[in-house]
């Protein structure tokens, strides 16, 4: 190199966009990574539930079945929350800030309702965590899921605040979109956990 001009072969990427949705984006991989980790924890929680079932004759051992009311209401609420979640995701992918604000707001509200119902659910489990191993796993399964719901409600709330105050960059819309993906994940896990907690005592 002596300061002479030197024409080199180049691959000019200047025109590439500053972010991408879905599995082309980095945020998606981070989100999915943690979904896999937490999903594995849920799987292990469910495996432990059935493993403990094998240790005793009656299920639940010496305790009444859990009450169905609040858990079922909660199932309906989180299933219904998929609608605003879907619209929030669609709005994010169209860079529609107003849409994101509205649907994320609805989602946060429904999430708060779900957390409230969850608090009531604990009162209808009809067992304590220290009654026996059945009580322990039921409380842990429910709490594992509750932590996820509560965390993502807070997370969505923070995103909603950001959507309202700005600054709004394009990559923020990827955050909105992947937040919706994560909410689907939480909703999807409630189905097997709900069935396990509330119906396995009746069926097994």
């Amino acid at each position, binding site marked *: *190199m002596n*300061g*002479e*001009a*030197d*024409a*080199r*072969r*180049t*691959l*000019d*990427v*200047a*025109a*590439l*966009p*500053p*972010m*991408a949705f879905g*599995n*082309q*984006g*980095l945020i998606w*991989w*981070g989100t999915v*990574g*943690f979904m*896999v*980790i*937490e999903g*594995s*924890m849920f799987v*292990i*929680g469910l495996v*432990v539930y059935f*493993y*403990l079932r094998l*240790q*005793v004759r009656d299920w639940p*051992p010496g305790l009444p079945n859990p009450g169905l009311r609040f858990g079922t209401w909660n199932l309906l609420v989180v299933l219904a929350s998929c609608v605003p979640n879907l619209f929030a995701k669609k709005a994010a992918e169209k860079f529609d800030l107003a849409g994101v604000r509205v649907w994320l707001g609805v989602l946060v509200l429904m999430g708060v309702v779900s957390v409230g119902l969850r608090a009531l659910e604990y009162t209808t489990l009809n067992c304590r*965590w*220290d*009654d*026996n*191993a*059945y*009580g*322990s*796993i039921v*409380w*842990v399964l429910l709490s594992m899921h509750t932590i996820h719901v509560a965390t993502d409600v*807070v997370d969505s709330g*923070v995103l909603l605040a*950001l959507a309202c105050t*700005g*600054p*709004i*960059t*394009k*990559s923020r819309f990827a955050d909105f979109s992947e937040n919706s993906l994560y909410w689907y994940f939480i909703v999807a896990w409630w189905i097997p956990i709900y069935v396990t907690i509330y119906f396995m005592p009746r069926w097994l």
Partner: protein
Amino acid sequence: MSELARPIERRQTITAADQERLRRQLSATWYVPRGVIGWFSVADHKTIGRRYIVTAFCFFIFAGVLAGLMRLQLAVPNNHFIGPDLYDQIFTVHGTTMMFLFAVPVMEAMGIYLVPLMIGTRNIAFPRLNAFSYYVYLFGGVMLVVTMLMNTAPDVGWFSYVPLAGPDYAPGKRADFWAQLITFTEVAALAVSVELVATIFKSRAPGMSLNRMPLFVWSMLVTALMVIFAMPSIVTCSTFLLLDRLVGTHFYNPAEGGDALLWQHLFWFFGHPEVYIIFVPALGIVSSIVSAFTWRPIFGYAAMVMALVATGFIGFGLWVHHMFATGLPALGLAYFTAASIVIAIPSGIQIFCWIASLWRGRPRFHTPLLFVVGFVAIFVLGGLSGVTLASVPFDLQVHDSYYVVAHLHYVLLGGAVFPLIGGLYFWFPKITGRLMDDGLGKWNFWLLFIGFNVTFFPMHVLGLEGMPRRIYTYPDNMGWNTLNLVSSLGALLLVLGGALFVYNVVRSYAWGLAAADNPWGAETLEWSVSSPPPVYNFLHVPVVEGRCALWDRSADAPIVTGIRSDIREVLITDVMDAEPVHKTEYPEPSIWPFLCAVVTSAFFIGSIFTPWALPVAILPLAITLVGWFWPKKRDREREAEERHEEAERRSRPVPTMREARA
């Protein structure tokens, strides 16, 4: 995506002045902050990686000293140098530290440091999470050391079996410290694994398709995926243990419908993959060293990759071979015997590929390659004793004896520590800019190799003669005296070897020969940048033209342009073919991940003592997390820039394809 949003191949004139300007701007943009707050804000993968490596080696020395104390105690029969209670703490903390604070973190640390350099990008994905993981790991490790110094260290073995570790038989807080240490290290390891997977899949330099990825990167990918699937199991089971001890749940209490074997299942479902989590990165290190010191590409690349992936899968099907003595149904055990033997196949394939590479190349026996050869010898022996242990009747005979201690040290020290030390001799010039002394290195190798075999080979025999593990002393008339003394003398050689290694590191760091960019003539991308690498890693992100990035590079190899140098912009490519897809901006250094790690650590330690730690910690945790993600000045600038670009694009007529290319 519009037609315009594509990478464009062309010729560009880049003058030396342009390069100098770029260098200056990149250095300013990717700065490593200074000062006390700056020290805790760093988000550069090289800085964090170096800290991880140094910290892991400090824990290695700590656990090594504990091992030395054990060998001192066992050198002669009826020794009362260390009492049973302290001895229990020492072997527990030795094993726990080696597994959770040294072996796994140091391997991930190698990945943190090397992967971005090997795949041609400027930083690891999620750099702040990376910083967070380091501090959580550090605080967890310090907690364990403090418990040891305060005589309240865990004393129930590194796998902490219940009921021994349960509330009935382990009063006090010792077992709780163990359970929370696990949480600390797993949080750190899981975070790093997600970063590594995202980095490897999404930020490889253009042209580095999956089938051109260096074997070390493949090994880190397999490791990270194994961590992601294995570690949730131990997080869950150690949390159950803590709950049993703290709030009276009954997961492991058979009197109330729990089950003690549940612990063993959950622990080993993690614990066996753990062995491979430690060992697989070492395989990558070995491949890097072999190809560099034979100057030929590794023989059987595809077979090597398949073997790594196969190891990753089969590693999950072996856990019950740790539980052969628990009275599980014999038919089920047969499956685990078969799986345990099957996993020898991919290991064998790799061993033969390395031998073939050495055979067909012209090996240069510098220190790193010596460690590789030592690794092959020791690991084959460890593998053979592993195959014998896979047999149920044999396992029942030697269960919980020194035979198992010998086996696990052969596979872990031989399979991981030898390649690791070889790897440090190999990459030391890249990391520090100075070569390690090769003469001392050879002494280092022979001391460790001989010391290792003298220490651990007799343990096979001691085990066969019936010496149980984890006893603090033994009577005079058992016939174990000579071999124990030999083993302890071997440990002395190991200590000397270790001390020589530390001496060589310190001496070379201060006065070693200055290293060229590529002192070994190796083929991976990290050797194309200066030693040590600049903060931004690559002045121009390269375009990779073959499997051996530097050896296959043509005279007129293209470089990537158009990645902004005034902000921390990184090129994101697609998973399979590493085609450029988009660019993204990595965050600036920040103090928040450190603060978040402080709060997280306080919460973990607090929850050893009271369940109220959770409600108390929630608010500070939320504050630090929001602080971490809350937009900074840079985001407002970015918003303005994007508005400006948008306005400009609207005011401009849409060019045709030909105009765009021109």
